[in-house]
């Protein structure tokens, strides 16, 4: 692999995040097939140079094959551009598209978009990790982490209702509660659609059938790799979380019927 090809690989991965030699749920993106061959036939020294180049930008190239996880076709290789757990993110990281994608009203603030993203994301993680008894490090479970859009929407509606009930007092510090409960009509559905579209576009979620979503391998690997720096910094200890037990009521009974 010469430097020119290395540059092509980096450029492709920055846009699409994943190179698969035999993609399952989609067709090849332009140029993907050639780059898969380049990476497959590269000697270890070139791959090492590429890893160093990426590490300087805060990334890590992770290669997986069918002997590692279920769901990868026989003889297929998957290369993923994952945020490095130990290096700083590069200066060209931009969160602006995230805020832009999450806004559904013309003059919404970035704060509101950020709050919506964080809370929808936590509910999404609870749907594919907590409700299945799956630990954050269990990447192998990505294949079974599927859900329908309606189920996710119902979960979101349920939790927003809980917030509305407990924060009806309208206290001054309930900024977040105010943002979350300020929904009318179809806006919650639109928020959920915006979230799902954003995640699919970033290759963290796959739409395997219309309305059915599955966590991608990249999504699972990234959560495992960057958890300590990312959500792990935010989420407090179990002792703090258990204190909220009286408010949270999981809709687990209705879920059992849905899992037919």
């Amino acid at each position, binding site marked *: 692999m010469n430097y020119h090809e290395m540059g092509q690989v980096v450029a492709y991965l*920055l846009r699409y995040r994943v190179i698969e030699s035999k993609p399952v749920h989609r067709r090849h993106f332009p140029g993907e097939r050639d780059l898969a061959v380049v990476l497959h036939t590269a000697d270890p020294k070139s791959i090492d140079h590429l890893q160093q180049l990426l590490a300087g930008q805060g990334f890590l190239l992770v290669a997986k094959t*069918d*002997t*590692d*996880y*279920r769901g990868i076709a*026989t*003889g297929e290789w998957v290369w993923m551009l994952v*945020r490095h757990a130990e290096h700083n*993110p590069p200066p*060209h*990281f*931009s*969160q*602006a*598209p*995230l805020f832009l994608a999450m806004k559904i009203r013309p003059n919404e603030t970035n704060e509101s978009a*950020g709050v919506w*993203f*964080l809370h929808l*994301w*936590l509910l999404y*993680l*609870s749907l594919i*990790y*907590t409700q299945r008894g*799956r*630990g*954050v*490090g*269990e*990447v*192998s479970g990505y294949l079974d982490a599927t859900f329908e859009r309606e189920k996710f929407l119902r979960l979101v509606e349920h*939790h927003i209702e*809980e*917030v509305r009930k407990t924060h009806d007092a309208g206290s001054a510090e309930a*900024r*977040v*509660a105010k943002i*979350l409960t300020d929904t009318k009509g179809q806006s919650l559905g639109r928020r959920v659609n915006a979230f799902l579209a*954003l*995640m699919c576009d*970033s290759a*963290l979620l796959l739409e395997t059938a219309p309305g059915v979503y599955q966590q991608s391998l990249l999504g699972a690997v*990234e959560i*495992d790799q*960057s*958890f*300590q*720096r*990312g*959500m792990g*910094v*935010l*989420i*407090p200890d179990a002792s703090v*979380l*258990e204190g*909220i037990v009286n408010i*949270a009521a999981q809709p687990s009974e209705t879920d059992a019927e849905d899992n037919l």
Partner: protein
Amino acid sequence: MDWTPFLTAALRVADLHDSGHTPGSFANPPDEKRSGRGDGLWLDIGCRLLDFVHEADQELNDNWVPLGVFFEETLARHPAVGVEDLRWVVIHLSTPCVVYAIPADSECPPHRVRSTKATALLERPPFKGPDRCRLTPLGRQAVHLARAGDQWLYAHHDAEKIITAIKAGDFGEIPRHAADVTHSLRTLSQEIVRLLELPGHDELFAAFEERQNHYLESLQKVQSAVSEARHLLALGSVENAFEVWRDSRPSADLSLVQIFTLLHQLLQTAEGLGRNFSGFIRAITSRQRTPVGLLRFDLAFYHFVMNPPAPAVLSAAFKASAPWSCGVSAVGPDDARGVLPAASEGDTAEPMTFDEAKAPPLPSEMEAFLAARSAEICAALAQGPVSLSTAFGAGWAEVGGRLHVGELMGVFSAPDWLGKDIDTVRIGYRPGGLSVDLGDGRRLAGDDLVLTLERSTP
């Protein structure tokens, strides 16, 4: 010996055989609870009976096996059971039943249905006497299947089957065996990866103890089998045998190259397993991995409603885990659109029209020249022969400040331009007579043309 793997693999299939579901009726999923006592008593007695008879059979060699010892052992193990119950178990296992199946080569409806009654596992003697029985061939097969199911790790990835297939000339079976071995190696490898994801170090060590033999043995078997297979396939005699086999089956879609590819893929799978296994050992010995376990993200949701995180912390968390994109400082195609001047505002909506009837045609160059000079030329011709050098010297080439060299020469070489009322004009030439300086740096040299007017003689 544990019969449960063998049994659980076949139970639902047996249910399908027994079901009376009519096509088109409501699709009820079957009950999870099976009928019966639910304590596994009769199953236990029956399986132990089969094991006992099989062991005794090793020595007695198909002779009748006396059951007295078995009855004593069982009555001690299950005191609530009586001898008549044990006899009932023997009768149960020795009564055949009818099994219906559609053979695989029956292509279109109405399908042939094959039935067999050779389904008894034990045989009782036809004479009355003390309790004895022996295994039927089917019973013997059942014990072997159960034993294989119990030790599936050893039966599955038997890479030596590939060697057997090559030596026996049964080349069509090689892809199937290779696929089986690949599948079981892959399962072992994925199992290792899965073990590393779960928290808990001690379980890991226990699993390692239990499985390391399996992993190492399967790796070694596969590697030696593949190298021997490659060696065999390179022999001339085996190649001939392959050609013979392929000629006898024109529909078979297999070539030696494909077999080599399968073996190569098998080696790659084994390599993947070896890689994961060495990672496994490294993880056990270094004690460095700490996989994060289960987290209550739903509770975290409420926590953040009441305690929103600081923007800097949230931003760092987003940068580490949330969707991102590259903010490159280059202009994109959409960015310049607002900057383009509104040049189109000045345009009217009317298209351009060409009105050819109104505009008078412009005179061509020749016409302009003739309009200016033809009278002079005709006057000079009337007085005598006119040569080209004379014409240039008289300045006739210049009209309106421009030189019309081509037009003047055109008139001299085709005097018809001068008009119809001229009598015949003859063109002559004087070799080497032309040497004109045009005044703008150009020079004409060559033969001189002379026009002579010939009046028609009356």
